[in-house]
């Protein structure tokens, strides 16, 4: 770990001024990802600004039934167990509880979870010479290397990493809004625009600026999200990142045809993958396996696998079918 300064802030403006003055500085949330990466020498901030005392740890209803506002410092376990979340957005609760371990969830914050970095092996260990995300221009070690956990959708020749978060897959399906504060004030970032695809700049995971602080995540009111579900496929029963995951919610009309659908995939792309093509396929259709399979096929039509991860394509289709079947069964 390289030497760094440490300071603690209690006010969001102080946090923003502090980070603006430190181009190499980082906010410290739960530290479960950042400290790991610092130990590995992947992240080398010269200053840590501890934001754990910011007054951003509440979960509250927005006025006029507009939804729920979640503070950036809310711990993953608190969010998962909160009554509002469990009743209105079960997909989010399930996604959180499927992630990491209880100890990690007790530390991990909403803001930090949004910004956790890829688990790509070549990114995580600086002794690997090639990684465009860690060291732009050094090429991608995974594309011809061991790429079992890598992307099948939206990747580029420069980077085939995946975003590892479970929580964010649920947030993508729920059309969450990320509210941030920078030196020039506050702004809102729709969830679909928060994380980026790698393109030619895989070093940039998100559209958040260095001097911006995540303050809240707003969950819009989606009445049918009370019938939503998160399905995670993984190598062991717990404490493993998703090979593939699905966050889904379905709404039905009076004739039991699908009226609205929200689907997002995890483990398949550089960002939580909103499955627009699959959603489109479902509208107006009966909730049966044939429909679900067609939706899966539509979404994965553009998928491309590599030496070790091609199995994810079929896995993702099956996961879509199973998640939707589970929801169909609740109708």
């Amino acid at each position, binding site marked *: *770990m*390289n*030497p760094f300064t440490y300071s603690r802030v209690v006010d969001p403006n102080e946090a923003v001024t502090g980070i603006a003055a430190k181009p190499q500085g980082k906010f410290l949330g739960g530290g479960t990802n950042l400290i790991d990466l610092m130990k590995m*020498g992947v992240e080398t901030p010269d200053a840590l600004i501890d934001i754990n005392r910011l007054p951003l740890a509440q979960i509250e209803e927005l006025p006029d039934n507009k939804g729920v506002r979640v503070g950036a410092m809310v711990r993953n376990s608190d969010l998962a167990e909160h009554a509002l979340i469990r009743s209105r957005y079960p997909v989010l609760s399930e996604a959180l509880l499927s992630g990491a371990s209880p100890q990690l969830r007790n530390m991990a914050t909403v803001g930090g979870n949004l910004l956790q970095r890829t*688990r790509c*092996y*070549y990114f*995580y*260990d600086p*002794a*690997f*010479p090639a990684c465009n995300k860690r060291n732009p221009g050094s090429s991608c*070690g995974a594309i*011809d*290397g*061991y790429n*079992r956990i890598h992307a099948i959708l939206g990747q580029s020749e420069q980077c085939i990493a995946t975003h590892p978060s479970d929580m964010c897959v649920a947030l993508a399906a729920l059309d969450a809004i990320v509210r941030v504060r920078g030196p020039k004030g506050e702004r809102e970032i729709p969830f679909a625009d928060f994380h980026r695809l790698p393109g030619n700049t895989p070093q940039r995971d998100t559209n958040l600026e260095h001097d911006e602080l995540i303050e809240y995540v707003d969950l819009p009111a989606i009445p049918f999200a009370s019938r939503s579900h998160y399905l995670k*496929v*993984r*190598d*062991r*029963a*717990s*404490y*493993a*990142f998703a*090979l*593939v995951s699905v966050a889904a919610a379905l709404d039905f009309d009076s004739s039991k045809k699908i009226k609205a659908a929200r689907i997002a995939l995890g483990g398949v792309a550089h960002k939580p993958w909103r499955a627009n093509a699959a959603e489109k396929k479902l509208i107006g259709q009966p909730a049966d396996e044939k429909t679900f399979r067609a939706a899966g096929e539509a979404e994965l039509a553009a998928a491309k696998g590599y030496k*070790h991860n091609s*199995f994810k394509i*079929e*896995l993702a289709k*099956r*996961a879509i079918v*199973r998640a939707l079947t589970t929801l169909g069964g609740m109708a």
Partner: protein
Amino acid sequence: MNTPTVGKPLTRVDGRLKVTGAATYAAEFQRPQLAYGTLIQSAIANGHVVKLDTSAAKSAPGVVAILTRENTPGFKPYPDDLTKKGAPGENRMPLQDDEVHYAGQHLGVVVAETFEQATYAASLVRVTYQAQSPIIDLPDQRAANTATTPEKFIGREDLQVKRGDADGALAGAAHKIDATYSTPVENHNPIETYSTTAEWEAADRLLVHECTRGIKQLQRILAACFGLPVEHIRIICPFIGGAFGSKGFQWSQTLLAAAAARLLQRPVKLTFSRSQMFDSAGQRAQTEQHFTVGADKNGKLVALRHATTTHSSPISEYTEPCGNMSRMLYSCPNVDVTHRLVKLNLTSPCPMRAPGECPGVFALECAMDEIAHETGIDPVEFRLRNYADRDEHQNRPWSMKNLRECYERGADKFGWSKRNQKPASMRGRDGSQIGFGMATAIYPAAQQKAGATATLNQDGTVVVRSATHEIGTGTYTAMSQFAADTLGLPVEKIRFELGDSAFPVAPNNGGSWLTASVGPAVIGACGELKKKVLDQFGHWPNERELSSLSAPIRSEFTSEPNKEERGKFSFFSYGAIFVEVHVDIFGQTRVKRATGVYDVGRMINPKLARSQIMGGLLFAISTALFEATIPDQATGRVVNSNLAEYHVAVHADAPPEFDIDFIDKPDPHMPDLGARGIGEIGITGAPAAVANAIFHATGKRVRNLPITPDKLI
């Protein structure tokens, strides 16, 4: 007289120390003036170091010394017997040349006032290499060029064995299978990482705190390498936080810590990070095992050929002995067992839990499942038809064998008769495929020379000592039981001490021989003590008599295996393991039930025994479904060198309950108590039981471990 404790489920005598954190592990010993070392490691896997630039590291805060090839004293060679052909551990002395044989190889040590400073400074060392592309794969032609066919495993077991005419028998066999199984590199990953604290008490006296399960061996290694008398080296190790085959043998970090301490004239501590557990001191080699098996129309084996290819590093000859159990587990007139060793640019392999038996019996027991399926005979019935009534390899009777009873009791408890023999025929309510699988477990029951002293103190306590180890298996407890029972005292009156090289000789902790080796020494020493005391007092002294003792009464005993008995019989422990798996549409496998019945001789402590088997079974589930160390093809570096990406079984992967049972009959030919080893047997066979159950569930035969979802969808 106190009632005997042997056979009783005593709770660990060191349990309280452990759960309260009061048990002191190697990295926790604080020494005055301690400095901290961090390894400088090679980023390449094949080639040599051109330049090692330490200028930036030297001026980093807190750095007190940097040990590299340039300022390292020449170490004298390792003791001969440790580097002879096939021995585990490395034969190259550290920092003696610029060659690099695998990624992570130690190139030096940075020593600083704190661990953090040392780690940071080590990251500033710049190494220039001349790199060659590493040889990583068994099938690589460059690896084939290095192939040898080693004769013996660590100078003991025959690795190339031929009995009868396998080719001829195969030609006429009614049923045949031909299959290749492979197992990956695995790492031991005990929770406690390696740690060494070296301290020169005088110019020629070295004190080392290290988690080693080879105290006496490490003492000999350091004496040889520093050219000192053995008694000038002292090794202390009261607790080991798991080993599973690691923490034995000669690896470079102990020498480097000792050399750094000498250079600095202050104690130096060197503790591995988790990722260093993957590249710095041993791992299980990958194996490729080709089976050709023939049976007659009644399901009687007529030929069994088991050809193993495995690897070592360029600086070790250690050979994973996969075929040893294939020589004799079943009755078969024509047997052909071979081992082929190639050299790869991967960390030097060494034993890992049931070396040879774990991958070897996995392949053997899958092959038996396949041939049973081929002949249309139930797998348990098939094994009974091929039951070996004597060891056909050594041509000797078994010391004792109750394997038949293991099969029968196990099948009964598990409900094996409910198994529909047809693969992919059973389904759960949630749509998952259900499979029942079984396998035989087997592990040699060895014994080694060991000594102990016993001392009766004026306060009535008896201190028993042996230079043995506590790797978490329950040595403190079992030895206290032996002492208490021999002396007729309550266990509370016994203090068993281990983990000090000044104590009487004990073997490396391995091969599941600890209890059978050190037990007789403890019983012997306590027996002698009792005799001495009774000679003096005519009875066991009361408090008053004890307090008037002018000096403690002491005895010593060394036990050796009975050569004649060991030559007459063949010694093994056995078991039968049955599992139920559920496989879902995503290829996720869950082990729902596991029933194991084991024949391990007399039960010393059923609670400890159950824990040992349970740990072995968890390890086996892990082996079957999760564990694999994956080297990057281009660089030879391990891609998953952490516990987030190298998966071991977690709680959620365990079946709700392990149904573990023991035959509990003393082996008449094991000394004193009739107890055989009970460490490694749990991990043998069980991975095959899982793989066989997966075949039964899905109809898919996956022959390469681990069986991850991608192989099943």
